[in-house]
């Protein structure tokens, strides 16, 4: 028997074996309906002295960008040790979505601004189908290279101009947005098919509203740490494989409290 025939046979046997498996999967994913919704809250703190922040030097458009103090924003720790820009999202596939969420997403534009030769906010979360706009409030032209796996783009964004787009497929990891004219400019975009994703604020706090009550699995990610593998809650260290943590969502609200992130996590 030739190699080709063997391979053809291999792919045939693999064809016929699937329907049963597919059916089994379909049954397993049936989830009981959740009528109650709760809010997940928490806060990320840095487990050491706030690291010094490196200043960045603009080497283009000095007459505009040179005026602003530019810093490395990879790890932003506030005065109260809050860690900003930790991405938190519910990773359960097919998680039930609150009835108000879809209309709200369609009506809310997510905006990423090129301002003072940096991107703001540093992390944006966009839902599939939700309008996403990149604008430019600077007096110099920028471009925004959006390296998502689906619908990637790189558009010129002139001063005062904007570029709109939508995404059709969700992604499991934030993608980088860069400006090729000013390579120090970096931001991150996470595309999800549900509203249950956010990034921690400057004080390290985050809130995800209207999550179906019951157990969900959160994914924790940070651009410097990658998937966060360990947190310390109430003085107790907790290894969380691949940055995943199961939490129970109560209708009355779930507060995950203060989660301390060891400095070692960010030394990569």
């Amino acid at each position, binding site marked *: 028997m030739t190699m080709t025939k063997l*391979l053809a046979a291999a*792919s045939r046997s693999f064809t016929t074996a699937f329907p049963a498996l597919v059916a089994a999967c379909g049954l397993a994913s049936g989830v009981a309906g959740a009528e109650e919704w709760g809010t997940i809250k928490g806060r990320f703190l840095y487990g050491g002295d706030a690291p010094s922040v490196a200043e960045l030097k603009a*080497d283009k458009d000095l007459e505009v960008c040179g005026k602003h103090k530019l810093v490395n924003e990879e790890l932003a720790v506030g005065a109260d040790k809050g860690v900003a820009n930790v991405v938190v999202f519910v990773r359960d596939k097919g998680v039930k979505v609150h009835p108000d969420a879809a209309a709200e997403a369609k009506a809310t534009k997510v905006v990423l601004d090129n301002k003072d030769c940096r991107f703001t906010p540093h992390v944006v979360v966009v839902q599939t189908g939700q309008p996403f706009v990149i604008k430019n409030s600077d007096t110099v*032209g920028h471009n925004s290279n959006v390296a998502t796996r689906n619908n990637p783009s*790189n*558009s010129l964004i002139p001063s005062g101009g904007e570029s709109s787009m939508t995404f059709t497929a969700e992604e*499991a990891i934030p993608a980088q947005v860069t400006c090729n004219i000013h390579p120090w400019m970096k931001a991150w975009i996470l595309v999800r098919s549900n509203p249950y994703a956010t990034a921690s604020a400057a004080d390290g706090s985050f809130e995800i509203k209207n999550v179906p009550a019951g157990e969900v699995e959160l994914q924790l990610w940070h651009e410097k740490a990658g998937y966060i593998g360990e947190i310390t809650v109430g003085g107790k260290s907790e290894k969380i494989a691949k940055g995943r943590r199961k939490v129970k969502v109560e209708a009355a609200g779930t507060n995950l409290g203060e989660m301390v992130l060891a400095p070692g996590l960010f030394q990569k």
Partner: protein
Amino acid sequence: MNRFSHVAFLLAAGCLLSAGCGRTPPASYRLNMVEATKQRLTTEQERQVATVLLAMFGTPDEPVALPETGLDEAKLRLASGPVRSDIVGRKNGLYREHCAHCHGVTGDGMGPTAAFLKPYPRDYRPGIFKFKSTERADKPTHADLLRILRNGIAGTSMPSFALLSEPQIDALVEYVKYLSIRGETELSLMRAYFELDDDAQGILPETREFLVDETLTPIAEKWKSAAAAQIVVPDMPADIDLAESIAKGKELFYGDKANCVKCHGVTGLGDGQANDYDDWSKAIVEINKEIKGGLAKAGETSTSGMSAEDAAEHRKQVAWLGRFSHVVDGDALVPRTIPPRNLRLGVYRGGRRPLDLYYRIHAGINGAPMPAAKGTVPPEDIWHIVNYIRSLPYEFDGELGADRPMVARDRF
């Protein structure tokens, strides 16, 4: 559900045995080690990717095209395998005769000559192609790739293959698509490990639904829909004098809207923003940083004083770095920055027709820092920029300074 993988694995073992003594082992595909490193795959996971790819795509000598790929296996047979004549005296093995020494048997752009070429030969595996008639993120059309093979790429080591027959060029284009679909499938598989639920125990489901419907089909569909995604180019404005159009183009080139000047430079010599990398080099820069930084840090860290658990974690990390440290030296080309094009040379890689320049400006260049003007610069203005660019090699350049790089005028 491991039947499929067993079959393929036995096959692989069989191939090795049947090669026998004293014969050259059959050509095999290389795994994408940069991505495997990035995803921190285990050896078992690497083996699974190789096994699944073998069953879905076959070997360099015996390629397989599942119907979902939309590829023509007869054409692949003509292009694949060692150079030889078939039963009717037709030459087979065209890819290895004409392409593999630069683009590699795997299509990873790492053939034996690759390290000596600048720019490096294209790595087909990410599915990113620069010179095409489609929007930035879309695949090239079949005709786009035929054009590249017939004309070559000016200013690079890619020659013209116009001496080959049409069916031969056509077969090679089909084979490039096959290698690209295979490479992109490999990337998808490697990236899928992370998304597995814990109960999958780090093993991808070897089901038709996952491998074909969810992984292969979306990649193949992008190739199939390329022809329909061609950029519609309006005619060059006819009611304007060429000199006037060039003047408008010049204004746009230096203006804030099109902003060409920022990278191509005030002089147009490509001396603006030149510190950036293309997508291929960027991936290597990032992984190098992670491994080199990690090794340096591991060298400084002592496990004494660590808890047993932390020490074990540390050893695991060091073992991982050690296992992949060869990626820095052996499995990837040394990354290079990508200089913006010198527009005064009159050399245009993607073709010198006004239409080619229109495509480049409208859609940008995929994989490169060049952004798309589409949506920002109206079509008639793109045409003015095209006219200005085409005039640049012949423009008076007396004020550029003595140390300027060569421009086209110097050669006449």
